[in-house]
């Protein structure tokens, strides 16, 4: 009897964690459906249902739901999940809760790619491809630079910061020479983030790349726990530390670059959501990564709802995530300090 009781009590911690993860992954689906109703033209539940699953509805409404709102909302969910999961993975790999996936210069690189594409008058597809490539290039440069100097974590952070600020300067250079009436505002708005122009053509490549990145990280997520120990411990536990770290950073970079190439620069989500998820399910990446995915998707869907409905014009996403994210981060930070856990 005692062992049975013991086992139930033992499993209950994990059951609780798994339940929270399940709920966190269902919430964005509900929000996504609810968000289909919202917009400049508010739709009824029946209209949305009929548009999605076939039924009597005006063609303009069906087009609005399927071709305008749905791709945008799917993009919001995927971008949110990507930023949050890669943020959580980077915090683990770098053994530092203040790191996010932009640490390797992905955003700055993607910004440069997008700015160059706009100056070259490329279309939305060109901007997406260029910014994705720019993001990957910046991170690759940071990793290469770091591995030339031993490949330790601190070196990687340092080279990430250097590459990031170098690429930011290049973005400024491109802005300085850009046409001030058409191109400059385009670049500026892109750098503030937003999903207003997103169509299926941009969403499909995002979904494919994200599936690879998220899938890879999910398979490796338990080993991420061990990478957060000291390098000697992880090695002694039999992990190929450098190789695993490289693989995780690559997958995280893929997710971030894919997200940023669609949404433009969106800050804070990749930093705060993993912290909030950790407060809910604990630091075990077995649960933390899926929890971050669900929470990230939900949070960005809500931010995007505010962005497109709060004012008559769109509010850039990065402004919203900053205005709301900073106070939330401060509250989480203070809570952690008061609990005394994790911050030394």
């Amino acid at each position, binding site marked *: 009897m005692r062992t049975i009781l013991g086992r139930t009590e*033992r499993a209950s*911690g994990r059951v609780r964690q798994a339940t929270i993860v399940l709920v966190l992954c269902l919430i964005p689906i509900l929000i996504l459906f609810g968000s289909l109703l919202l917009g400049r033209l508010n739709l009824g539940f029946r209209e949305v249902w009929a548009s999605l699953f076939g039924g009597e509805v005006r063609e303009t409404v069906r087009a609005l739901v399927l071709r305008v709102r749905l791709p945008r909302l799917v993009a919001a969910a995927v971008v949110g999940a990507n930023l949050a999961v890669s943020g959580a993975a980077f915090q*683990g790999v770098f*053994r*530092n*809760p203040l790191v996010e996936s932009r640490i390797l210069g992905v955003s700055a690189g993607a910004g440069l790619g997008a700015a160059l594409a706009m100056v070259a008058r490329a279309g939305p597809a060109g901007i997406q491809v260029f910014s994705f490539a720019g993001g990957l290039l910046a991170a690759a440069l940071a990793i290469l630079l770091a591995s030339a100097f031993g490949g330790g974590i601190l070196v990687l952070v340092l080279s990430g910061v250097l590459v990031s600020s170098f690429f930011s300067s290049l973005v400024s250079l491109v802005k300085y020479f850009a046409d001030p009436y058409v191109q400059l505002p385009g670049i500026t708005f892109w750098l503030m983030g937003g999903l207003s122009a997103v169509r299926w053509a941009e969403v499909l490549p995002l979904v494919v790349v994200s599936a690879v990145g998220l899938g890879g990280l999910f*398979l*490796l*997520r*338990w*080993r991420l*726990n*061990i990478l*957060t*120990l*000291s390098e*000697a*411990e992880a*090695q*002694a*536990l*039999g*992990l*190929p530390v450098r190789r695993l770290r490289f693989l995780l950073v690559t997958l995280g970079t893929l997710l971030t670059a894919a997200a940023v190439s669609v949404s433009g620069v969106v800050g804070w989500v990749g930093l705060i959501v993993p912290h909030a998820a*950790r407060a809910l399910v*604990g*630091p*075990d990446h*077995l649960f933390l990564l899926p929890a971050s995915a669900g929470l990230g998707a939900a949070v960005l869907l809500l931010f995007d709802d505010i962005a497109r409905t709060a004012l008559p014009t769109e509010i850039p996403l990065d402004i919203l995530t900053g205005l709301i994210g900073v106070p939330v981060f401060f509250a989480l930070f203070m809570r952690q300090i008061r609990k*005394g*856990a*994790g911050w*030394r």
Partner: protein
Amino acid sequence: MSLIGRELFYAYVSGQFVLVGVNVEVERGEVLFLLGANGSGKTTLLECLCGVRVPQRGEVSLDGKRLSSLSARERAKYIAYVPQFPETTFAYTVEEMILMGRAPHIGPFGQPGPKDREKVEEVLALIGLEALRGRPVNALSGGEKRLVLIARGLAQEAPYLLLDEPDAHLDPANQHRVLSVICRLAKTGLGVAATTHNPNSALLYAQRVLLLRSGKTLAHGDPRQVLFPEVLTEAYGIAFQIVGDGSGPKAILPLVEAD
């Protein structure tokens, strides 16, 4: 069946050897303590035996096989390394931390399964940590943290357990608690090696002791037979006195006075 280091040389900076031709053997079923002043090469030697560091000259062999010919994962199935403190920013629970010891038994893309969790239960019971299972490791006392790391090493199911200063930063009661756990494990057939700054730990708990000075072996053998005041003075540079009764030496006292 033993873990043997032959003629080991190791230098962090080229030309400046920290280990100068050290021979060492960790046998299953016994406790070996590595003694020596700060910077004498104890920890480096331990890390060479773990395979975390590769000696520039000499060779470590594991039950007859060359250690350097094994993959990291294979090696981890034989040798468990127990650091002084859990070095992590994140507040893992005792259970989660011990489960990490299962890493070498889980495939590169795998997750821990019921068997791994059963092993954790077994180890929790063996070390007596059941009551702490859900507590965050960074909230535990120094002695408890040390036991959790030992438990993680046991979850690895490795026949050799190598510990970095298992008695450091602990009060006398906790030192005894940790070291007697180690002795108990050696009696079940594990080969244990540990570094220490306390010659008394070696005297009380070790079957064999290796005393290093500047990367060379100064003395090697049964602690009761090799830890003489003259040898200790040579190793540490201060005078010592051995206190004992009819049955043999009981304690080693440094003969120093405060100014």
